[in-house]
Structure formats: structure tokens, C-alpha cells
């Protein structure tokens, strides 16, 4: 595959996704509203919406495209996986140089939880831990996770970090499920005096995260391969625990353990701030989001959205719990956006 063909093939698929996000989504929504008006009854659940539009031709195309544009992005002739496999030796060399860096600590004996091995999340063949190039594939794939933001996708992480900063300064920060470090970077750059620990299961992603930190000459971060809900940190080690797009990847039992672990490693008065997908403003959003979870191979998206997280955190001894929608860019309408968007949500709490 030549570089030009890959770049243009990916650009074509991204533009198709943008069309889906705007024109197709808006048409589907307008058709849905017309049907609601005709029935005179506002749907109360995803099942109600399914009954109303689930069998329409428009929705079938919407669903098909959501599934298959993602499949083509990763696995097609111009897909990310074949592209990076062809170039593995060259592209992995700089990452291997970072392998001995003190900022990286891998654990080859770490066993992957069973739920990771059963599903290739995001339709990424082998998942984000399956092969050495998986971190590069994921990084490139994440650039178009939010199709309408394009190259501004990274801004989202800075925007979240800025929101966390408003809550005060932190000296010891834990980033849970840091992936290839896109969420960690704004933290180690925004808090140069703080010590940042970032953990993830996926060695290929951690190597890329460390490589980026070396490039950025960051001295205040460490990337460690471990399970976020089973870390080796002493109780009370951190004054801030954060995660970005981690919780929805976990089964409910592991979500429970994640909040327990966050509570354990936080010092009294420490804060926990997570960015994830949670608040669904209406039945239509609920229906599309649950469908998105199925189509994108994210089986825990729906169970996570159905958890009463504020209630759960209160039971676990957190105080000042807040669960609020998060606008990922200026001008976004978090309750009724004209184009498709993730239901970004900030979940924050303090250890009593």
C-alpha cells in the first residue's frame, strides 16, 4: 500500500463518516421526530425508539455505515492494521529505543482480564494489546474517533485537563487506563511540578506513550503496565485520580472495583475526575448510543450507562459527587446537537 493511497483512502472514509455524522444523522433525527409527532406519544426508552424507527430503511443504512466505516478504517484494503503491519519494522524502531527508558515499566507477566480477550474493542483486530503495532494503530485510529473535530481531537484532552485544573492544584496524579498517553500528556505538561503516574494494560500503547514523553522531554511522568483496578500503589498515594474513556470499556463488576481502587489510593480530601460517556439526554440518544456500543464492539457501553453512578459513589464514601455533561468543543449543544456526538460526561467526587 503506497502512502498516498492510504492517506486518501482514509480521508475518503473519514469524509463518509462526516456525512454520516451530519446529513444522515440529522435526517434520521428529523424522521424520528416526524414519527413521534404522528404517534403523539414521546418515547420513554431505547426500546420505544427501536419500535418506532428500528426497521426503517434510513436507520438500517445509518447502522450499517456506523459498523462498516469503522471496519474499513481498521481492516479494509486501506485500513490502519495492514498499513502499519507493512511498515512495522521501521515504525517500531523508535519505540523500541524508548523501551529501556526509566519512564517506562512493563510487566510481561501481567495476565489480560478475560473480558479483554473476548472482544476486539473498536473493531481493532486483536485489540489494543494484540501485537506490537497496536499502539500506533490505536493512535492513528483515535485521530478520527470524533469525526467532526478532525485534528482538534487532542484539544478535547487539554479542555478536560483545564476543567480539572479549575478544581485546584495537584501534586501526585494517577491517570488510569492511559492508553498511548493522549490523556496523560496535558496533565504532565499542565502540572510540570507534579508527579504523574499513568497505568494501562497494553504494552504497545505504553511504549508509544513513553516515546512521546521522551520526545516532549517530560521528567515528571511514569508509564506502568498494570491493571487500573488492581494497582500496587500504597493507600493514600495520590491527591488526584483521573481517567479518560476508560470506564465504558469495563464490565460493571470491574467498574465497581475501579472506584474502590480510586478511593483506596486517594489521600483524604483527594479528588477523582473521570471523562467518559454517560449522560444520555433522551430516549433517542439512548437508542443510538446503545446501538453504537454493539456496532463498535463495546459490550459494556450500555451496562455502564445504566449504572446510577452518583448513587454508587455516595455508597462508596465519596462526597461532593457530580455527574455533568461535558462540551468537547465550543458551540456544542450537549442536550440536542445538530450532528452526532458522544455523550461526554465528567464524573467527579472527593474522598471524604
Amino acid at each position, binding site marked *: 500500500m503506497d502512502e*498516498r*493511497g492510504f492517506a*486518501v*483512502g482514509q480521508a*475518503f*472514509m473519514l469524509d463518509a463518516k462526516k456525512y454520516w455524522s451530519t446529513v444522515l444523522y440529522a435526517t434520521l433525527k428529523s424522521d424520528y421526530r416526524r414519527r413521534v409527532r404522528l404517534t403523539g406519544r414521546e418515547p420513554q426508552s431505547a426500546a420505544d425508539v427501536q419500535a418506532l424507527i428500528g426497521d426503517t430503511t434510513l436507520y438500517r443504512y445509518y447502522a450499517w455505515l456506523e459498523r462498516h466505516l469503522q471496519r474499513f478504517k481498521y*481492516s479494509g484494503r486501506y485500513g490502519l492494521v495492514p498499513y502499519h503491519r507493512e511498515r512495522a519494522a521501521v515504525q517500531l524502531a523508535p519505540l523500541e529505543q524508548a523501551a529501556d527508558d526509566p519512564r517506562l515499566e512493563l510487566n510481561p507477566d501481567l495476565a489480560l482480564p478475560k473480558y479483554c480477550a473476548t472482544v476486539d474493542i473498536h473493531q481493532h483486530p486483536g485489540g489494543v494489546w494484540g501485537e506490537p503495532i497496536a499502539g500506533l494503530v490505536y493512535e492513528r485510529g483515535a485521530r478520527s474517533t470524533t469525526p467532526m473535530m478532525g485534528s482538534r481531537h487532542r484539544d478535547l484532552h487539554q479542555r478536560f485537563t483545564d476543567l480539572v485544573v479549575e478544581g485546584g492544584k495537584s501534586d501526585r496524579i494517577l491517570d488510569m487506563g492511559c492508553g498511548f498517553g493522549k490523556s496523560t500528556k496535558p496533565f504532565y505538561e499542565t502540572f510540570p511540578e507534579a508527579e504523574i503516574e499513568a497505568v494501562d494494560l497494553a504494552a504497545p500503547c505504553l511504549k508509544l506513550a513513553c516515546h512521546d514523553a521522551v520526545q516532549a522531554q517530560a521528567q515528571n511522568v511514569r508509564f506502568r503496565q498494570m491493571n487500573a483496578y488492581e494497582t500496587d500503589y500504597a493507600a493514600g498515594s495520590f491527591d488526584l485520580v483521573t481517567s479518560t474513556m476508560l470506564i465504558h470499556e469495563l464490565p460493571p463488576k470491574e467498574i465497581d472495583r475501579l472506584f474502590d481502587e480510586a478511593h483506596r489510593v486517594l489521600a483524604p480530601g483527594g479528588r477523582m475526575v473521570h471523562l467518559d460517556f454517560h449522560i444520555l439526554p433522551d430516549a433517542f440518544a439512548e437508542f443510538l448510543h446503545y446501538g453504537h456500543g454493539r456496532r463498535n464492539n463495546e459490550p459494556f457501553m450500555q451496562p455502564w450507562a445504566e449504572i446510577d453512578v452518583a448513587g454508587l459513589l455516595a455508597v462508596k464514601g465519596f462526597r461532593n459527587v457530580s455527574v455533568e455533561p461535558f462540551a468537547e468543543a465550543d458551540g456544542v449543544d450537549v442536550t440536542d446537537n445538530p450532528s452526532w456526538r458522544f455523550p461526554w460526561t465528567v464524573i467527579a467526587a472527593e474522598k471524604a
Partner: protein
Amino acid sequence: MSKEPNREGTSEQTFFADPALDRALGVVMALATEVYVLRDRLRAVEALLDKAGVVSINDLDAPPTAAALQAGEADRQAFVAGLMEPLLGRQASKGAPSGGEAGHG
């Protein structure tokens, strides 16, 4: 072409009453991607040739003359016929009478 094996135990997600349509749309989308990649490459070749003075993009973009359109007519019609002919359901070879496997097309 992707050499990914079918993931063991994973069932196909389908969205239409007939899964044949799901798969046929995949073919259409793969072809559309290929067409766009080719289109982009053609424009790149044209730009390089124009820069080298071999062809002029203005000449390439100019509308064809009536004579040129006329000269291309037979080729165009053959292209259209080849594209549309499968819609007619005509059989190009003599086969078994209906029944048995014939019911599957």
C-alpha cells in the same frame, strides 16, 4: 486485500432483511474507496504532467468538441450496456430447467 481471518465464534452483524444486501453494500463501499483513490492519483499524475509541460490541465478540463463526443459514443454505449445488462435477468447460457439447484439462481 485484508487477510484477517474471520474471528472464531463471531457472528455477522446484519442490518437488512436480506444479509446479501449487507455484503453487497460492503462491495460498493470498497469500490467507492478505490475509485476515489484512483481519482486522486489521476489528478496527481495530471498535475505532474502539466508541470512538466507534457499536457495542459486547461486542455484536459475543456469540454469535448461535438466530434470528440461523437467519436466516444459507441464506447459510452457499450459501457452503459455492459453495466446495465445484468439488471435484465437474461441468461447467457442454457442451463437446467427450473427446480433443484436452479431455484438458488
